[in-house]
């Protein structure tokens, strides 16, 4: 039995449909139900929905053998797992954004608002810029508007939210997409099942 952690939301649903097209379907999942775990005994698979930022923890600690999560979360939390596939979906970019007229004053510590403190810290220490991290849990875009921060580090999909708030991308840090990850011990003891699912997903990736 392969335990699969899927991230709640659009990305998880997309991945489920990729898996279900490959024969890993689970009728219970498609019904309106209050259950938390869903099993397809014949195909030897059990799904459960978790908060996207928790997928890495579930897989690292072996509660799930495999899972799907965005590269943004993988980089931020660095779970000790195998990163077997780039699924090529959920694409977006990790960016530095600021007000259109923003100019970086290098004499001052830069105030950075973000949901991704580690990513922001790594990026700025890579370019030797001293920063003050302001960790927020949502509505990051408002921080520069209210003068809480000079810039934000956040994921940008279409850039529409930025534009509507008179912000723009100043620098792209990295490309983000969904990854298929695997627990390092499950990879050994359930190797055949993991490989099978990996190959099934590989077939569904649109280049």
């Amino acid at each position, binding site marked *: 039995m392969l335990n699969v952690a899927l991230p709640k939301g659009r990305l998880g649903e997309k991945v489920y449909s990729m898996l279900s097209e490959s024969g890993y379907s689970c009728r219970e999942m498609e019904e309106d139900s209050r259950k938390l775990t869903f099993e397809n005994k014949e195909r030897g698979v059990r799904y459960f929905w978790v908060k996207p930022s928790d997928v890495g923890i579930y897989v*690292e*600690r*072996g*509660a799930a053998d495999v899972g799907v999560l965005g590269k943004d979360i993988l980089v931020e939390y660095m779970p*000790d*797992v*195998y*990163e*077997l*596939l*780039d699924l090529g979906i959920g694409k977006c970019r990790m960016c530095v954004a600021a007000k259109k007229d923003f100019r970086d004053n290098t004499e001052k510590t830069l105030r950075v608002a973000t949901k991704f403190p580690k990513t922001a810290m790594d990026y700025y220490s890579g370019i030797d810029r001293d920063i003050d991290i302001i960790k927020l849990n949502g509505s990051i875009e408002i921080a520069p508007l209210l003068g809480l921060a000079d810039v934000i580090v956040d994921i940008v999909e279409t850039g529409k939210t930025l534009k509507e708030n008179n912000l723009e991308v100043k620098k792209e840090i990295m490309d983000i997409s969904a990854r298929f990850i*695997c*627990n*390092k*011990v*499950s*990879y*050994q*003891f359930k*190797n055949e099942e993991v490989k099978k699912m990996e190959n099934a997903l590989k077939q569904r990736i649109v280049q």
Partner: protein
Amino acid sequence: MTENKLKELFELYGYRKYRMNRFETYDFYSENKNFLKTSNLITFTDLDGRLMAMKPDITLSIMRNAGSEDEKVYYMDTVYRAGDNHYREVAQAGVERIGQIDDYAEAEVISMAVRALKCISSDYSLRVSDSDFVSSLLDELNIDEPLQKEILSLFSRKNCDGLKKLRSENRISGDICSVLTDVLDIYLPIKEGIEKIRGMEFGEKIQKTVEHMSKVCEILDSFGVLDKIYLDFSMAAGMTYYSGVIFRGAVPEVPMNILSGGRYDTLPQKMGKDSGAIGFALDLDLIENYMKTEKEYDYDVILVYTDKTDKKKLASMQTEMMEKGKTVFCIREETYEKVKERIKAKEETICAK
């Protein structure tokens, strides 16, 4: 008890127990910090003013105190390490072998690692890699230092798509990308794995490493432990500690590696000893946390007595039971009434009149 089984195993192989101080001077660790997996130490000032540290590692202490002639020691001890923003006490069991490490000595230690895993679970796997193989490969492909680091980090996550991305950014050639992908993709029983890399026609230095691995493999076969050993180069990443063979052991019940070890000749050499070294350690806390089965009962017998009970009779009753090897929990009736929801006896609860 896992610990007793391990102790027995290590002694069968002719290892003697090594017991050491809980503290070392801070200087000792700062001189050897390249060999530590962590830079976080619990430090304190000793009464004579020296700065001391709680030991974060056992290998270093053994290495300093042991002779350079064939030394075979094992330990069961605690180390202090940082994790999740707190210091933790970690119980470890392991072995260190110092001296002339030839093919046989290497195979002997690996066979002991396999049998240690067998003490813990009926199913297990030991993954073997070689840090010389991976570093020679990267050198042979003429990959510069910063890129080597990036590739090693992709290796540790088995991230083949990351290699493809380097290719699409033109940072490595198509040929290099496919060689690296083939090597990273290997997760095979060791014999098959060695055959596969033999077929890949590498340079002289790598061939030598492969021949060495193949010889060790033959000896392991005679030790009768070959069937669950796998070749896997994904764990070669960034280990300055190890030179040569690296291995990691796991059992299906525990979601992380419980055993890790390898060859670390650079450490005795740095300490001015003309010898090699190899060893491994098991994380006993991790094993205990995941392997422990729920206890169905607390004691064999609960013996309840009151003020009216004949104490002489009670004492001989208890003694008789204990002599039969039964665990006896003797308790006054009033107290028993308060705690009886929490405690459970296997056989019976006897009320002594």
